[in-house]
């Protein structure tokens, strides 16, 4: 086998071993004990109706508590549309 195939197999084996060890040593699915208790999310769940007035917790996080991330995502969507229209401007005959 050539040099490129050999290096590719070594790289793939190293990444697979790391990911398999990481998956087996995570904390059990759905249990939160004393050392990783979610304080920020508990505050958001308790005070959504008083401060925001919405019933939907996910919408209040997307638009009110973390509205800056939504601004960045709107910019990415606008840039992608502009790029696609620019690339196909000469093939429109």
């Amino acid at each position, binding site marked *: 086998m050539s040099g490129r195939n050999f290096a590719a197999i070594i790289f793939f084996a190293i990444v697979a071993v790391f990911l398999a060890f990481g998956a087996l040593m995570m904390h059990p699915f759905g249990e939160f004990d004393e050392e990783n208790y979610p304080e920020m999310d508990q505050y958001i769940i308790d005070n959504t*109706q*008083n401060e*925001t*007035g*919405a*019933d*939907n917790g*996910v*919408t*209040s996080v*997307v*638009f*009110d508590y973390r*509205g*800056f991330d*939504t*601004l960045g995502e*709107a910019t990415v*969507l*606008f840039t*992608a*549309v502009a790029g*696609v*229209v620019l690339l*196909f401007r000469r*093939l*429109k005959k």
Partner: protein
Amino acid sequence: MIGMSKIVRTITSAVFPFVMIYGLYVIAHGHLTPGGGFQGGAVVASSLAMILVAYGSVWVVGRIKEKHLSILESLGAIGFIGLGFLGIILVLFYSSYEGSFFKNFLIGQNTIPIFNEIGKGLSNINTAGVLPLMNFAVGLKVIAGLFVIVLVMAYATRVKEGK
């Protein structure tokens, strides 16, 4: 892209208004039920893509100019950023107002009687301040953006007749 047969065109014209109304319902009730701007915008854009597949891209491009779609998308983006800046601009008018970027300024006040209640879980649509207006702006942006992508890629790679 060539259109499809007469049966497909008839059924698509009959189903298209219902899918569009369902998508607009998901956008409008984004602060009460699961959904919001991005999810409802994807539903409406997929209904427009169904029209594009059934009728052919040459027929659709003859009806809709691309300039109008890009104006719609820019209106959605300007509306979203403008609602974020209004939290700061209100400090210039009322000097005792504590404002910041993206502040919810329509809640708990009595001068503008729209969207200013605090909900108690009984699905009142008059609640949640700035959030429904932001949902409409982002929904408009997603509808126009996804439809322009599909339309431009389908029109530029069509197979020419003859040759």
